[in-house]
């Protein structure tokens, strides 16, 4: 099996070829595009799993990770290398990402039906096919997205890592803005790209520092993370300008690189893009939130962990900062999640919160638990997102049904919409979500919004596959005992407890309770109780291409945690040789029942509390009880602490204002007027010169002319043609001349 490891560089290739093939050849045929995209993902999966499993099964694999170069880029006097590597960390990522990508691709092929916000009249062909008019393009984008992720995972240098990282950024921009007819989607896509780019620029600066101050003169992981180089960075000190503190270089580098994660993994304060990223089609949300993009941010921390560990040793503040951001984000985002109505938005904040867990884990030195939670979270979050997409799809169909048949109360026959798209797309399309908006005490409600959980309820009986898989995913997210999320979350909590990080532990425990609570709330509002609207009543189960991926992911969400139980920690054993190989220190704690008990209590407690409040759903028109209990706090949570508004009012508004002012400065007020002014001055001077020329120079000439004219007038009398006068003149002048000539001689003679 070892031979597979050298094929790692091939992993990103099939999806890229799929992307190219769709763009170049198959962009007209939607079915072929989907087949090519899925084929690419499957090939990539078929390469990834053997690689992953040969790593899993190899003896002490971490001691001898595979690394090789493909070719190099010289920059001035040194080289930046491009190559690949396989080690325990990215073997796990390969295992997770490649599988989830296949699931998401299959799901997407069923999900991308004709969207409701478009008018079928504009897209008659696509509407007749019942598929999104840009279905092929979607398949191409997600293929490129997958390439970005897989390339990033197998990268052996931080530079190539960064390149793939940005390719993903581009794809996320394209996919979030996929339905670009919607203003909200356009705004969200730019917001995502810009916000992550803010983080990326910090990271780029960090990369620059790392490149310049490392001894190796390259950005290969094996070189920059070698014990020798880290020691070098830890002893080399720098005075930070402005605050005038002298720290070892490794600390600012770690912080700057960490900002890359803050952007990409949506940590506070750069978390604002992720909830808006919901504007993309749901498979994209699943990709971004689970299998690829946000995972990449945490994976960066895992990759660079030796650097962070060193920074933590010589400048403990670095790791405290990471832990603080993570723990704060975990808590902060989970409070927002309990007061949201959009089914995907709850999940979005939940993702931010769970990523906070991982970041906090890195911050306290819990290297393996962070990676473990990254992997399990990817599975159950993918499950939840795909499930929510299925719900939205179902409710949307319910809405079309209602529009078609008018509002009637008898339930539609069960099989009518099951399994297949029940409506011809021409009928289905054209209903934008333009329903009546009513103002409620717990937030405005659009009565036709298929994503608002107040419009749902009782969907479990209508969509059993989606419902049950969603519930299992939800339990895993809550950390319900024995599910995947339980084990990984418990590892993090155990490390926080054992490492004596009480504050982090406290924040994460509260957050765990809130997580269980909002998950129960979400399940209750969506699946339990009675349908609150007609469209929920008529929601059909989704097509098999959507439900099968859900079913296939479920076992992982349920059971994957068993690779890391305190009593047989395979993942720990798998990673251990690697930690030794790289010679860094990760946190090791003795197993303790206290955090585990706490974890069980809060998870079950949160679920029970949530079930108690929302277990029967809400009655039609009933205000969320939480709204009344929390009072003004609800508004804070519901409005996400007004952070978006804050940014819009400060950074964005300021930049726009500055742009305008500078433009005026440039074009109207200063620079151009100066240039024009100088030009005008030139013209004015020229006029002045012309006047001078006319009045003075020409005047002199004219004066001379005039004078000569006058002189001429006097002389004219002498030129009247009389010969004798000429003769007289001649004689006179001759005489004068002679006199003048002769006078000196005459005088000499005298």
């Amino acid at each position: 099996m070892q031979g597979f490891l050298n094929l790692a560089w091939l992993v990103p290739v099939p999806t890229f070829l799929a992307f190219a093939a769709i763009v170049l050849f198959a962009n007209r045929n939607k079915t072929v595009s989907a087949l090519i995209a899925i084929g690419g993902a499957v090939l990539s999966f078929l390469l990834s799993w053997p690689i992953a499993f040969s790593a899993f099964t190899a003896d002490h694999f971490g001691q001898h990770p595979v690394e090789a170069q493909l070719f190099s880029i010289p920059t001035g006097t040194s080289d930046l290398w491009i190559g690949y590597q396989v080690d325990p960390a990215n073997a796990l990522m390969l295992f997770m990402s490649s599988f989830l990508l296949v699931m998401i691709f299959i799901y997407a092929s069923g999900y991308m039906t004709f969207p409701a916000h478009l008018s079928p009249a504009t897209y008659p062909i696509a509407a007749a096919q019942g598929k999104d008019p840009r279905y092929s393009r979607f398949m191409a984008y997600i293929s490129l997205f997958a390439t970005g992720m897989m390339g990033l995972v197998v990268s052996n240098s931080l530079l190539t890592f960064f390149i793939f990282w940005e390719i993903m950024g581009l794809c996320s921009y394209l996919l979030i803005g996929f339905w670009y007819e919607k203003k909200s989607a356009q705004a969200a896509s730019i917001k995502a790209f810009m916000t992550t780019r803010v983080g990326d620029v910090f990271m780029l600066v960090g990369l620059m520092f790392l490149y310049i101050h490392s001894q190796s003169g390259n950005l290969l992981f094996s070189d920059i993370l070698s014990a020798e180089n880290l020691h070098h960075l830890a002893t080399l000190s720098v005075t930070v300008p402005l605050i005038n503190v002298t720290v070892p270089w490794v600390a600012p580098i770690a912080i700057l690189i960490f900002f890359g994660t803050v952007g990409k993994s949506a940590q506070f304060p750069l978390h604002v893009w992720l909830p808006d990223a919901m504007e993309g089609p749901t498979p994209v949300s699943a990709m971004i939130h689970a299998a690829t993009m946000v995972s990449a941010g945490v994976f960066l921390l895992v990759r660079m962990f030796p650097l962070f560990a060193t920074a933590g040793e010589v400048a403990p503040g670095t790791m405290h900062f990471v832990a603080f951001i993570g723990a704060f984000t975990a808590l902060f985002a989970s409070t927002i999640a309990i007061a949201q109505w959009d089914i995907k938005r709850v999940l979005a904040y939940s993702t931010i919160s769970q990523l906070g867990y991982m970041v906090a884990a890195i911050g306290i030195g819990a290297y393996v638990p962070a990676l473990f939670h990254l992997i399990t979270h990817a599975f159950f979050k993918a499950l939840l997102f795909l499930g929510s997409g299925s719900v939205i799809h179902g409710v949307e169909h319910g809405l079309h049904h209602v529009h078609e048949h008018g509002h009637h109360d008898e339930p539609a026959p069960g099989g009518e919409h099951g399994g297949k798209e029940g409506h011809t797309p021409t009928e289905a399309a054209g209903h934008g979500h333009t329903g009546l908006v009513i103002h409620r005490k717990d937030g405005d409600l659009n009565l036709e919004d298929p994503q608002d959980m107040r419009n749902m309820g009782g969907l479990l009986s209508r969509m059993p596959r989606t419902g049950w898989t969603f519930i299992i995913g939800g339990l895993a997210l809550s950390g319900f005992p024995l599910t995947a999320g339980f084990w990984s979350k418990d590892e993090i909590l155990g490390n926080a407890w054992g490492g004596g990080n009480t504050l982090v532990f406290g924040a994460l425990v509260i957050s765990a309770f809130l997580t269980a609570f909002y998950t129960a709330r979400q399940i209750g509002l969506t699946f339990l109780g009675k349908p609150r609207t007609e469209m929920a009543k008529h929601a059909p189960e989704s097509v098999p291409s959507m439900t099968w991926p859900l079913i296939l992911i479920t076992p992982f969400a349920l059971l994957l945690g068993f690779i890391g139980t305190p009593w047989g920690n395979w993942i720990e054993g798998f990673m251990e040789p690697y930690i030794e190989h790289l010679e860094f220190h990760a946190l090791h704690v003795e197993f303790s029942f206290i955090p585990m008990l706490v974890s069980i209590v809060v998870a079950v407690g949160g679920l029970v509390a949530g079930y108690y409040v929302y277990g029967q759903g809400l009655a039609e028109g009933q205000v969320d009880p939480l709204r009344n209990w929390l009072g003004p706090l609800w508004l804070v949570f519901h409005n996400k602490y007004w952070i978006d508004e804050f940014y819009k009012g400060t950074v964005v508004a300021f930049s726009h204002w500055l742009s305008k002012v500078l433009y005026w400065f440039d074009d109207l007020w200063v620079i151009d007027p100066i240039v024009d002014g100088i030009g005008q001055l030139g013209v004015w001077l020229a006029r002045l010169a012309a006047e001078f020329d006319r009045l003075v120079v020409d005047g002199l000439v004219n004066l001379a002319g005039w004078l000569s004219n006058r002189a001429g007038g006097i002389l004219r009398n002498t030129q009247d043609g009389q010969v004798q006068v000429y003769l007289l003149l001649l004689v006179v002048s001759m005489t004068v001349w002679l006199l003048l000539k002769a006078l000196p001689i005459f005088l000499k003679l005298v």
Partner: protein
Amino acid sequence: MSSPIPYLLSLITFLPLVGALIVMALAGDSPKKRAAFITTLVTFVVSLLLWVNWDNGQANMQFVEDLRWLPEFNLRYHMGVDGISLFLVLLTTFLMPIAIYFSNKYVTDSIGPYLALMLVLETAMIGAFIALDLVLFFVFFELTLIPMYFLIGRWGSGNRVYAAMKFFLYTFAGSAVMLVAILAVYFATGSFDITELPALAAKMSPTFQTWGFIAFALAFAIKIPLFPFHTWLPDAHVQAPTAGSIILAGVLLKLGTYGYLRFAAPIFPQAAAQFGPVIAILAIIGIIYGALVALVQKDVKSLVAYSSVAHLGYVMLGVVAMNPQGVSGSVLQMVNHGLSTGALFLMVGLLYERRHTRLLAEFGGLWKSVPIFCGFFLVVAMSSAGLPGLNGFVGEFTILIGMYKHEPVFAILAAIGVILAAWYLLTAFRKIAQGPITNPANEANRLSDLKFDEIAMLLPLVLLFFIIGLFPNLFLDKINPSVQALINQQPAIVMKVGR
């Protein structure tokens, strides 16, 4: 140094001029068009001989031609290319066929003189890049003004006379000062030759160097254009015909950065080091200022024009850094900017020929009606925004590393521009391509997507984005030795700001 053809550089330089004569001599529009296009293609192919016969390890001038011109003044017809000028020559010969093809397709008004002027312009540009004699350089440098003046003033749009005049006078004012400085340098050192002058720097007093440098730098700062000498650029770009804009942004602006790197910095090394921080600060202001102003432009062309101010700020940063990464990055970034911005203007031109407007507000939803156009536009915008994997990133990254080694604060400030570049480009893309179609003129039935030949114009540019982005060593290998040699002849200078 192994030139396959004697006088290869002269041949490349004057082929377009011969073409211009042929174009004028021919009767009828289509023979003229064909002759012009073939001339530029042949010039390009011939110029590839430079690449093919390039001596990779060589840092000195290659394909040198050195003839006496006016011996009593030590004026020489001295030409040569090294790693710094090679790609600028190739950029010129590469962009010209594209510009000519576009013009042939869309310019209807007295095409003959137009094409002849374009060809004369090509001769002037190539000449300026390969001239090693200051006077010879100056002649070519000035010669670029005349065809460009007519191209803007005669074939431009709207306020073209004002723009052409502004362009001409502004640049001319700068170069007039430079001419005085060139003569002063001659009287101080007895040489016009750039291969000799760096060694003669000691003959110039520090005060002399300072004034000489200011005169040179001013001329080039206007040409680049460096903030605050940039306002001729948006006007010239907005009014110029498309091919004029492509060449103006793609090549002519590089005469400024190239001139600074080739002449101003090596002739007056001490003064260049002294004034380095000033130029770096102006460049950084340009990066941020240009990007912010670009953000609120209503006209696509002036948006791209302001983005040029920002991009060339990076180039100047690398040049000021005067270390291998900085300068190599700058040379590559000159080429990158030529390709990306050339492509942007080309795309704007293609759009303009369809819609006869460049106002962003007139567009929207084009992704639906002209998807191929928008796909290309996105790639071009990303190349301009410095997306890793494409050409712009390699240049920016190496420049930032170079600048960081030189003066970290500047590098960090310049990095802000990376964020802003994405912002204005994505905003432009959103306004053009995204959203529903609001103006019926943008509907698919009224707006045709790119045709085969239009794609053929864009494709070479886009391919180069990827080639440079993924295999920059193909280029840097040739650039590096000469850059290293240039840096080695600089006296050891330590620049420190605010320390």
